[in-house]
């Protein structure tokens, strides 16, 4: 037995703890680099230069960050309702199907309404796929962690089957669809800026980034400024009080998973409509899982999620540069660093809490009740 954990001041909770966690992850990564026989400081330099050193690096960093914002928001919305959605990966994957079906079959839509329709298609497919585990959680007591993990495999199997047997472009071996027509694409920034005479290197960085920022604002408004958001937070914080307050936790659970799945669909907009321009196998590539770390680090708050998503974008892009600069350090090193960030920001989140709380104890604490 020991004294209960003293509450931290807000600024420490929001800023200090995540920073300490990330710093710890980097220090340990440094030791790993050292063990491989490379200079960690040079590695950091190479990583940062690769991610932020020029416009091309920045473009790629923000392209990755866009996907992370969507998956982070998707996980975070569920956090607020007390739900742990592990299925963002599969939901984003199925959302790709929605985007592709609209892009390939709704060609009659005029101009860029086709792209908008494709994005809506992605959101609807993602939402529908998330709603099944949501429904099972709400009305059948199947735990959402278990069902969403299993649904990731279902998504993978469905998409594999469809891409190989149904959607594959005839006359070639790759499991991918025909390229989409131009009006179905989300414009890339270098194209948009070219209209204004600004030269930006060719990168997959596209307008989905703006959509991601709009989604951040929308999620913030939803959670903290609407009745639905109030109900979501009440269910997450105290389901018994929610029932007392006339809120149906089951209904809120289904609505929240729908929203979560729709946000996961943003990944399809970014990667499929914004970069690949056709549906390909396994395009989500683990971004959904990283979304869990993003949401944890970002404290399920949109501003925190943007910052965490950019950090992971830097790691992703910088890691590729690093593996070119230092051949001894493979791409797997980035997986190690990500793993450590997840470990410290998620699993060991409370490790630094007590020392930090003790450190701050003399300044701000609460009496025991």
């Amino acid at each position: 037995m020991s004294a209960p954990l003293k509450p931290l001041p807000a600024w420490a909770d929001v800023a200090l703890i995540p920073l300490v966690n990330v710093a710890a992850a980097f220090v340990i990564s440094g030791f790993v680099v050292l063990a491989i026989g490379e200079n960690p400081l040079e590695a950091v330099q190479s990583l940062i230069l690769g991610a932020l050193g020029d416009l091309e690096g920045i473009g790629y960093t923000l392209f990755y960050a866009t996907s992370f914002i969507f998956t982070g928001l998707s996980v975070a919305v569920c956090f607020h309702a007390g739900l742990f959605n592990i299925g963002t990966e599969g939901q984003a994957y199925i959302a790709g199907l929605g985007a592709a079906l609209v892009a390939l079959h709704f060609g009659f839509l005029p101009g860029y309404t086709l792209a908008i329709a494709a994005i809506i298609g992605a959101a609807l497919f993602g939402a529908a796929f998330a709603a099944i585990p949501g429904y099972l959680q709400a009305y059948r007591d199947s735990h959402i962690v278990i069902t969403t993990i299993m649904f990731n495999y279902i998504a993978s199997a469905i998409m594999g089957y469809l891409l190989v047997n149904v959607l594959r472009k005839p006359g070639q071996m790759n499991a991918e669809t025909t390229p989409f027509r131009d009006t179905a694409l989300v414009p890339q920034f270098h194209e948009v800026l070219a209209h204004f005479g600004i030269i930006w290197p060719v990168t997959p960085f596209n307008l989905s980034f703006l959509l991601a920022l709009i989604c951040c604002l929308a999620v913030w408004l939803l959670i903290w400024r609407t009745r639905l958001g109030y109900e979501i937070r009440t269910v997450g914080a105290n389901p018994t009080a929610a029932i007392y307050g006339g809120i149906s936790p089951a209904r809120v659970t289904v609505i929240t998973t729908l929203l979560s799945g729709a946000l996961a669909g943003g990944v399809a907009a970014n990667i499929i409509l914004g970069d690949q321009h056709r549906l390909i196998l396994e395009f989500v590539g683990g971004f959904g899982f990283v979304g869990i770390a993003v949401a944890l680090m970002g404290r399920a708050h949109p501003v925190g999620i943007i910052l965490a998503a950019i950090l992971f974008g830097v790691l992703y892009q910088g890691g590729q540069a690093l593996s070119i600069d230092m051949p001894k350090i493979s791409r797997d090193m980035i997986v190690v660093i990500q793993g450590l960030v997840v470990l410290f920001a998620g699993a060991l989140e409370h490790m630094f809490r007590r020392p930090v709380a003790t450190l701050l104890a003399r300044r701000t604490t609460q009496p025991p009740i």
Partner: protein
Amino acid sequence: MTVPLAPAIELIAIDKSFGPVHANNNVNLVVERGVIHGIVGENGAGKSTLMSILYGFYEADRGEIRVNGEPVRIRSSREAISHGIGMVHQHFMLVPPLSVLENVMLGAEGGALLSEGAGAIRKRLGELGREYGLVVNPDATVGELSVGLQQRVEILKALVRGAEILVLDEPTAVLTPAEADQLFEMLRVLKGENKTIIFITHKLREIMNLTDRVSVMRRGEMVATFDTAKTSPPELADAMVGRKVILKIDKGPAHPGPVSLEAHDIVVRDDRGVVRVDGVSFVLREGEILGVAGVAGNGQSELLEALAGIRSLSGGNIVFYGDPLPPAERNPRAERLLGIGHVPEDRHRVGLVMPFEACESAMLGFHREPVYGKGVFYSRGAIVSDAEKKMDAFDVRPRAPLLKTANFSGGNQQKLVLAREIERNPKILLVGQPTRGVDIGAIEFIHRRIVAQRDAGKAVLLVSVELDEIFALSDRIIVLCGGRITGERRPEETNPQDLGLLMAGVSERAA
């Protein structure tokens, strides 16, 4: 009483602060050996902090602890036990699926193999049973024992570890009156064996009944110590709050009006499907307070939840102003719209959302109403000003709508719940345990507001396990035992002994 060489416990100038809050301010306490020493005080007076310091949960900022005259440092419960101090917590520290023997052994297994330690402890339990009459079957599963017996296991745990000084924190809060009497008997036997007992409570009746000496704490300070025989409940109550308190509130006669709520043979099951309310019928009129008395766990909670629409009926019917409530209307939202306010028994688990700002907790259940903003979005200004209005009306302190709900004291949290339910001007008010864990000053205030509802012609149903509260407020009392009504009384025609019999299930038919 023998004259000991040194007191069992001396706390000298104990000081403990949590940030700006001075929880214990220069506290001195002397507990003589072989006595029952009561400590009373309002919630937040510092009793629990002081005992936590004695038991090694916290370390004091300053001050000295002496056990049997020896200065000691107590930094953990293990060290407290080694000095012969045992603690019986209000919420038992037991593992329900394990047996009594296994629970008692926990932390004192005595080696890698259980059998050796188990044998020794089984023997010791037998001795303690003979010496003190503390008999429990060592092979019984703790989860299946009554609350009174579980508490006995807690006491045995302390004694097996060699406790000479027992600290009991609000031990009667969970007991039936009969179990409390047994506990007192047990404690007197222990005292006879020269054990020292520190008894924390807020019930003055128990202090008068049981203790030899009593110390009073107020706002972190030890304000007085009396020989129990030379003091009186009014004197103790005054010392606790520092001013004259009217324990009995003035209330005029009730003027009951038309029937507002009727229960017809209602049957309610708990989450496990066990029938907890078994054919209860009553009428509730405007302008009266109907008290529902009973030992905790006899169906009152389920009855209240069913009336509030949280729990579904397995039988019977609820009639609201002459019209039976259809099942579609028996949910918290619909009932709130009809004008049924509900102050739940458990404000922590049910009535409030602790991590929310106070203003957000102050709209729970009413959060869809247009006062908080039209359309999809809330108006923060409207939410905050509504909360301020409620806080002013009910003197919630601090008046800080943006402060986290959890950071208010129990009494102020409860006032917040009452404000939310009463300010909406309900026709019927259902109230559960309105003053549980609330300090005396706030009790008075809350009681007045409940009576004011009655005087304004509202129907009030009061569920409480505190007989004092039932007597102070009710115009009519029904008693529940085992989910059935065992009797109905008017407060002026009955007394605690009479109600106690009804609560114990000695119904009028059987008597």
